[in-house]
């Protein structure tokens, strides 16, 4: 097959579908066992230095913030990260735990660009390869399908492709150029959901983002949930299960786990908190003060929630609005 172009970007996690199968066969458990544990235990057991890590959804929306904060507290380092993110990636970058980024978009949308990203990449501390949002999600989808790559019609003709690790080939069916995206198998995925049972059967409300793709592309998967529900409840509406239990290694109960981001139908984003971080993050010293207060200064998510305070959380609950 004729390769027309090869991206010059580094392939930080080469696709290995057979390695993934082997992992599943030897390490995953298809028996329904209770996986509820503390975030300390979950991160200690399932996140390792040097891991390739993914988070879903993103920064201000149903993001696994409590798990990210715990990962930082435990100082998991030399992480390789897939980034369509905001606050969660900013925190990992600010704590200097990231070596490489497969980046699609890291910024603050309505509020502005990311100072943490700028410092990390412009200084040469963090190496990058660029992709589109569709591109990185199709890389998860390829992994979820158990195949080494997927052909897509995106990224073609651009530097986004040139500085990625994608390839362009001549499609053997139409004869036209087509972009091949390498599957992205994650060592560990962190996902925050609305409801899960103790075995890890999960539901999310609202948009599904890339929960299907990333949960299936992860060797190890830690789920945090606003609420633990009974398996009877799960079995009553099985069509609502987006992550079945066998994908999951740990279930962590974390009400307000997406704070300062939002959780649809539960609480709205904490705009004040986010904007104050964004302002502080322009200055490395103030960024450290933020981390000292909100991450290192609390033992766990329960202490974090206390620090935010009940009044504030009630306020955010009242602001989310209904259906």
């Amino acid at each position, binding site marked *: 097959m004729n390769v027309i172009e090869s991206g010059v970007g580094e392939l930080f996690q080469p696709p290995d579908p057979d390695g993934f199968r082997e992992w599943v066969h030897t390490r995953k458990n298809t028996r329904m066992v209770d996986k509820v544990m503390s975030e300390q235990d979950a991160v200690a057991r399932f996140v390792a230095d040097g891991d390739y890590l993914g988070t879903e*959804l*993103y920064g*201000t*929306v*149903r993001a696994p913030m409590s798990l990210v904060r715990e990962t930082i507290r435990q100082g998991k380092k030399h992480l390789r990260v897939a980034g*369509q993110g905001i606050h969660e990636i900013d925190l990992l970058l600010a704590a200097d735990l990231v070596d490489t980024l497969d*980046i*699609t*978009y*890291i*910024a603050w*949308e*309505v509020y502005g*660009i*990311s100072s943490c990203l*700028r410092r990390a*990449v*412009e*200084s*040469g501390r963090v190496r*990058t390869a*660029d*992709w*589109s*949002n*569709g*591109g990185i*999600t*199709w890389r998860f*989808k390829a992994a979820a399908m158990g195949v080494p790559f997927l052909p*897509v*019609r*995106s*990224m*073609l*003709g*651009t*530097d*986004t492709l040139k*500085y990625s690790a994608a390839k362009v080939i001549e*499609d053997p069916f139409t004869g*036209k*150029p*087509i972009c091949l995206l390498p599957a992205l198998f994650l060592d560990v995925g962190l996902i925050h959901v609305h409801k899960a049972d103790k075995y890890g059967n999960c539901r999310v409300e*609202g*948009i*599904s*983002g*890339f*929960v*299907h*793709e990333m949960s299936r592309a992860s060797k190890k998967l830690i789920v945090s949930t606003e609420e633990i529900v009974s398996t009877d409840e799960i079995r009553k509406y099985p069509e609502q299960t987006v992550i079945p239990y066998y994908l999951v290694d740990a279930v962590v109960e974390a009400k307000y786990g997406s704070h300062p981001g*939002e959780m*649809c*139908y539960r609480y*709205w*984003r904490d705009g004040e908190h986010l904007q104050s971080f964004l302002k502080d993050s322009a200055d490395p010293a103030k960024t450290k003060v933020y981390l000292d207060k909100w991450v290192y200064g609390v033992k766990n998510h329960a202490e974090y929630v206390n620090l935010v305070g009940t009044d504030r959380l009630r306020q955010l609950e009242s602001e*989310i*609005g209904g*259906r």
Partner: protein
Amino acid sequence: MASYNESEFLICLASKLMEDGTTAFVGTGIPMLAAALAKRMHAPNLVPIFEFGGTGASLEKLPLGVGDSRTFHKAVAASGICDIMETACRGFVEYGFLGGAQIDPYGNLNTTVIGKYWPPKVRLPGSGGANDVASFCWKTIVIMRKHDTRSFVPRIDFLTTPGYLTGPGAREKAGLPPGAGPYRVVTNLALMDFEPASRRMRLIATHPGVRVEDVLKATGFELLVADKVTVNPEPTDKELRLLREEIDKDRYYI
């Protein structure tokens, strides 16, 4: 006529480009305000599409991000990013509204780096969904808040998102779906299209009080000029009231 600022003008003009009964990819920022305004004015049946899964939201409240709960409030569907991008790839999405830090004569956009790729002088956010949107939507509309020679450049530092690439036929040669590409560029000074034969950017209308030479001077490349350059309509009192009192009450943008 009430007085208005540049952002308000830009939003009102972008809003008028949104066609009732069509599907439109809406990015963060001005496109969201323009879509919210269009739905209240001439395009109640506009179907806003957000990349992380929202289709057909009411936009009663202004979304602050492309995945927040307002992107699927009273929507007809809440799916995920693969479904949305694949839907666009199959040709269902008419318009895509995007912004950029730099744009060249062919409508190619840079939102990745200023300077060399790595380590860059300035690291910008990256493509996000923009590359996918501009690859797949039939008509891409680019909104640039500041029309000057720093952002309208002959060569962008990094081609994040495809316009017409190097000119006629280049998109198709690269493997992108045929018949799609940049359609309009809206700025704080003027409205541009792309001349069909050369695929180069062309001035078609200026804002009230802006002269053609002002626009040419603010553009860092040779901008084509249409035979007849018209004047863009000013925001109406109703549009301004909706923007100030309903859509952007918290003044995120205006």
